[in-house]
């Protein structure tokens, strides 16, 4: 550990491992205290935080606070998420009683946040619902039926929220995607709905739920929205109504893909890629010539951090096929933080199909592809970064002939 960059990469990886969601009790306790705290106006106060009563021990009061405060969360549609550049969403359809199931059973406050590690969006949901993350990615040609494993599912006892996303095909427009999704139905006739500042369409508006619904006899709502190169599909089925669906959608934040307005060409590894120009580039200083560990100092180009991209390539040893090399490389991951990679999904990089490792999307996603006798490894560390990596990979040009070694 004599190299600062090696230390910093290790430290960043370690920092990434910590919690990313605030405990509900902390947020609820703060909201409860705010209910009885007045704002300061036209006075100057020091930055120091005055001692307050400790969070611990507030549990009982917080429960009462949730009842008082939580209800407001579901009837107020947030504007654009902090720091994002989307246009503010229009006002929500107010529901004085908050979301309620069509049968009259109230759905609790949307007090917890689900982050889709595969698709990058977030949505809030009731604390007593359970979540099941998608186990495979939705893509063209795949039908994301309930239970297909392509949807994130958030389940209550009689209602369910599902979400999925796919990248549009090369050159495909939003209209073309919507028409394909509509399978003959005209999307322009579907009601519109705003999701995180993006105008989407509701293609199923309270129709009887299809087979496989969580609550037979219930209804189904389905919305789609295209944000840049990604299409999103959100669905609710079971004992739900339109207000409930809208309340959930009002909490959705879509992943923000920064502009890839910088360009980097790796003179050592033989590729080029576009990236957010605000990110700092540290070019590799030596080629990757042996072994399977791309974290050794200096053999990967790194761009940015948290999220942070790393790219490198290695010439396959003579007589060793990519399949053989990749099997060993894949096995080497077992010693990493996330253990073995039990599955990958195909990814096309500069016209070549490679392997995308998505088994640990809370920490990283990684693509491996063969070109010109070289194995290229591109990874992006950080939580829920698959959409960003896919966008960056779509700009990659592989030039194995220019690589050094």
């Amino acid at each position, binding site marked *: 550990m004599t190299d*600062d960059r090696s*230390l910093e990469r290790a430290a*960043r990886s370690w*920092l990434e491992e910590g919690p990313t969601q605030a405990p509900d009790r*902390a*947020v609820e306790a703060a909201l409860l205290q*705010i209910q009885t705290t007045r*704002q300061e106006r036209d006075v100057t106060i020091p930055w120091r935080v005055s001692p307050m009563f400790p969070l611990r021990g507030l549990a009982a009061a917080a429960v009462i606070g949730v009842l008082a405060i939580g209800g407001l969360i579901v009837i107020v549609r947030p504007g654009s*998420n902090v720091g994002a550049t989307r246009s503010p969403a229009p006002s929500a359809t107010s529901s004085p009683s908050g979301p309620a199931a069509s049968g009259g059973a109230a759905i609790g406050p949307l007090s917890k946040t689900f982050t889709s590690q595969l698709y990058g969006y977030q949505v809030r949901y009731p604390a007593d619902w359970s979540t099941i993350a998608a186990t495979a990615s939705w893509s063209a040609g795949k039908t994301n039926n309930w239970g297909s494993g392509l949807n994130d599912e958030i389940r209550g006892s009689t209602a369910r929220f599902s979400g999925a996303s796919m990248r549009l095909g090369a050159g495909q427009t939003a209209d073309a995607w919507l028409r394909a999704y509509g399978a003959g139905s005209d999307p322009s006739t579907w009601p519109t709905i705003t999701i995180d500042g993006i105008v989407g369409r509701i293609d199923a508006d309270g129709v009887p739920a299809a087979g496989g619904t969580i609550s037979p006899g219930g209804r189904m709502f389905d919305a789609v929205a295209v944000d840049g190169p990604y299409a999103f599909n959100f669905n609710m089925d079971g004992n739900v109504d339109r207000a409930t669906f809208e309340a959930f959608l009002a909490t959705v934040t879509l992943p923000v893909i920064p502009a890839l307005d910088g360009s980097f060409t790796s003179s050592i590894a033989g590729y080029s890629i576009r990236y957010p120009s605000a990110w700092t580039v540290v070019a590799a200083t030596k080629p990757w010539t042996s072994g399977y560990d791309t974290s050794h100092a200096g053999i990967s180009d790194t761009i*940015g951090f948290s999220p942070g991209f790393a790219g490198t390539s290695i010439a396959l040893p003579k007589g060793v096929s990519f399949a053989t090399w990749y099997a060993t490389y894949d096995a080497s991951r077992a010693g990493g933080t996330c253990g073995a990679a039990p599955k990958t999904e195909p990814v096309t990089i500069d016209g070549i199909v490679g392997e995308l490792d998505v088994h640990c999307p809370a920490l990283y996603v990684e693509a491996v592809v063969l070109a010109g006798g070289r194995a290229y490894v591109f990874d992006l560390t950080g939580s829920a970064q698959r959409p960003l990596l896919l966008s960056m990979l779509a700009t990659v040009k592989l030039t194995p002939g220019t690589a050094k070694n």
Partner: protein
Amino acid sequence: MERARRGDREAFAVLVHQVSDPLYAIAHRILRDTGLAEDALQNALVLAWRRLPHLRDADRFEAWIHRILVHACYDEVQRSRHWTANVRVLPVDGPAMPDEASAVAARDELERAFRRIPVEQRAVFVLHHYLGLPLVEIAELLEIPAGTARSRLHYATLGLRTALIGEAAPALEEGRLA
């Protein structure tokens, strides 16, 4: 934002739900303690509510609340007289391989080394390496000279490196990051 500035608690609650997760993540990384991080988050959110009418530029909200949070973290450290042995439980059932054991030891060493660094240095380290903020922005955010931000980062890195040189170093160099 404007509604919240004018005293609308419902509007502020929406803001709270948007910022609480990233704020908690930062606090936990600085303080390395769940209870202290929760208290820092709570105090920061309440103070932000109180001070919100003073925020003139809504575009500065994120940096503004980050500053409040970091100061809340400082206060939590001052308030806690001693660190509890809240070493992170690593996700292993028992190292199956020597490399795995080395990685566990290295991360444990990182944890302990980081706790020995002054909280002001930890804050700069986290803002730089976790949030990805340039030092100039960190200096502006914390209202300290740029040179101070740079030296805090330098000493934090130095402290970690000094603590890690030794038996844990080979494991960090040899283990995959992800």
